[in-house]
């Protein structure tokens, strides 16, 4: 191995300390080192969203982040969305119920992205379609157009978008 660094990450609540190739991106660390293959590689270039996971609660394209720069971070992948009893996350249930996927390859990224998007809206982050009636910092109400806009970093070639929007709408508190 070339230059490498000892890196500690907490992934889905478990701490891992690994010697990581400095070139390795978070996506490959999850997939190759931890066998968390729920994070998918669609493009390796930040263009598809299949690799979306949560780092310290915010959604990221894990193919664009060098793992060694994330020392001390908390990472949540699709494998970590279920409850402690293994009960699937309400969003996972909604995806099943709505048939919000076909091949399933974009799905873990869609799920993590949706969890992140819901948190961003709750924290008052506006999007390109947020109306002027929403005060900066106030929770943004999520309708279909907000969901579409916020989920547009996650490509689905199977074209499940309408069902994805419905599934996300189903879990809006």
């Amino acid at each position, binding site marked *: *191995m*070339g230059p490498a660094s000892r890196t500690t990450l907490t992934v889905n609540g478990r701490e891992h300390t690994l010697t990581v*190739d400095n*070139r*390795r991106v978070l996506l*490959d660390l999850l*997939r*190759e080192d931890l*066998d*968390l*293959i*729920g*994070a*998918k*590689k*669609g*493009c*390796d*270039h930040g*263009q*598809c969203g*299949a690799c979306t996971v949560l780092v310290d609660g915010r959604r990221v394209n894990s193919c664009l982040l060098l793992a060694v720069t994330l020392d001390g971070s908390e990472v949540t*992948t*699709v*494998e970590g*969305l*279920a409850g402690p009893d293994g009960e*699937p996350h309400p969003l*996972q249930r909604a*995806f*099943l*119920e709505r*048939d919000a*996927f*076909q*091949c*399933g*390859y*974009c*799905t*873990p990224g869609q*799920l993590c992205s949706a969890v992140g998007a819901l948190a961003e809206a709750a924290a008052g982050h506006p999007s390109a379609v947020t109306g002027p009636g929403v005060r900066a910092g106030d929770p943004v109400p999520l309708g279909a157009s907000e*969901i*579409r*806009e916020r*989920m*547009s*970093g*996650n*490509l*689905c*070639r*199977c*074209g*499940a*978008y*309408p*069902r*994805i*929007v419905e599934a996300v709408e189903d879990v809006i508190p």
Partner: protein
Amino acid sequence: MADAPAALGAPLIRREGLEKVTGRARYAVEHRLPGSAHAWPVTARVASGRVLRVDASAALAAPGVLAVLTHENAPRLAEPDDPTLAVLQDAHVPHRGWVVALVVAETLEAAREGAGAVDVEYLAEDHDVLLTPDRPDAYVPEKANGGHPGLREHGDPDGAFASAPVRVDTAYRVPPLHNHPMEPHASTARWTDDGRLEAYCSSQGTTKVRQTLATMFGLPEESVTVRAEHVGGGFGSKGTPRPDVVLASMAALHTGRPVALALPRRDLPQLVGHRAPTLHRVRLGADSDGRIRSLVHEVTTHTSRVREFVEQAAVPGRTMYTSPHSRTVHRVARLDVATPSWMRAPGETPGMYALESAMDELAEALGMDPVELRVVNDCRTEPDTGKPFSSRHLVECLREGARRFGWAERDPRPGARRAGQVLTGTGVASATYPVLVSPSTASARALPDGTFVVRTNATDIGTGARTVLGQVAAEALGAAGDRVRMEIGDSDLPSAPLAGGSSGTASWGWAVHEACTRLARRLAVHRGPLPQDGLEEHADTAGTADAESDHARHAFGAHFAEVGVDTVTGEVRVNRLLGVYAAGRILNPRTARSQFVGGMVMGLGMALTEGSTVDPAFGDFAERDLAAYHVPVNADVLSVEAHWIEEDDPHLNPVGGKGIGEIGIVGTAAAVGNAFHHAVGVRMRELPLTPDRVLDALARRSPERGRA
């Protein structure tokens, strides 16, 4: 003991759904084989020529690099049926992006660095990649894709056109398009100590992959196993084996290690097929009541020097409408381009874009409603073959769609609906897709504990095949669905055709139905407990499934679109898409809807965002990644509705479906294009309708139609 929720027609949730939403479903390069290495391809930088020399020394010196395969040291393979698979066998470079070396390394990073360090020297030759409608070297192929004759002619199409009172003579262009499934083409391969080859391959059908590998590596088929338990989409591009599985197998043989190879996204356009560009000329001559007298559809397209593949885009005109005089012909030019192949509804998709756009132009020329024009030209027998349709409910789809869409309220005048800077319009197009079916085998076993195992090498590329076949089996067995285990996606299972041509469910379902029906009959007369390993029945539909039918069998549909055109920015938004289909029996409404809608979304992409360009200087595609090639995103897709008409067609197969994976895309782009014309009063005849082109088109509008 029939179990209602398991029966055919029930909207069951996908059997593997929970695995997919929890991230447990493993795809082709996610099987952790001990000692695995990773591979990365090096692709040709010239569009035509030869590799003179490969200097791998720097790559081999990089830490972690295990080997560099080139045409000089790679295993020699027997010639495959598909010459695009003969990788690293000689120095010839037939097009830019052809694989010229493969680096194998301990890690992905090392493989990628190694690939960057391989130094290839080429002898470049002149290349010729530009398709034009009048290329003198374009020829009429004997057969286009699907075995369709390159040319069909009836009556006197030119004479009938010349004498028709109403005529449309027009040309359309569809650019190259890329499948881009979200999972790239990927394989993991290993050789066992006893000389067997095992692969996990992202494929639409591993029976064919196994045959191909056995041929190329000189093995009996029993010595090769190929698995595809979960496949991240394919849309035709994984319908045949691709270089990834051959390269991974060679690399594994060369290094003695299991090797995983996922083709980089940027290499897919050159290596896994594409929808070839099609240049269309369509002539429709009609009587003043709208009945078509003459239909001429001439298509010019490209193929590579490696293999002849001809997008059969003139074929829909042989089926769709009354046309006593017709000519439907393909011309193809062999260029120094990558080899085109299947992309969702090859032939029908670009062909119906052209034909259905021309129908809209004919309706305009006649001053007739475009739905009525299609109704007037409906036919009971297929124009080309003279065979009666086994069932044809195009008119019902048009009528039902018109009702649901609110077509009756439409003001036929173009450019009449303006709100601020946005002009809104609506359009319609028909869709068709042939009923294809292939022989398949399957087995069904009853176990002493009351459960069943049904096995066939079907592939679930996202269609819900596992779920629907479970329904077919449960119904035939008279068993609850949860008593039936489905085993698919493994070439050691009873052999089965690929998931393609919208034929999977019909082909596999036929064999599953037959095996389960036989087993049920046997169980009905069986006395006493079952033997330890149960009772098993097999089915093989060779000779029945592929028997010639005396009916023309096609699915039909109607698409309606509403678009808004921003006259300042040139942006086109599809506000509503509505499709109504007549595709035989719908076996699972939940998964069927997803297939129809998915097809329509891809059609929306074809209409508005997707387009690739052959770069004349470099010879490959200019749009090679997902930042340059724009597949639709969530925000592009507003309301998409799919509906269907139940069809009871006795001339199909025991499960009664016509196939639904492709028809959703077929008429969508034409419906959107026709809606665009209705919105602004300008006809665009080249896809996609991107803002730059739209603004140009708006600038061409005649002044009396108002300001742009």
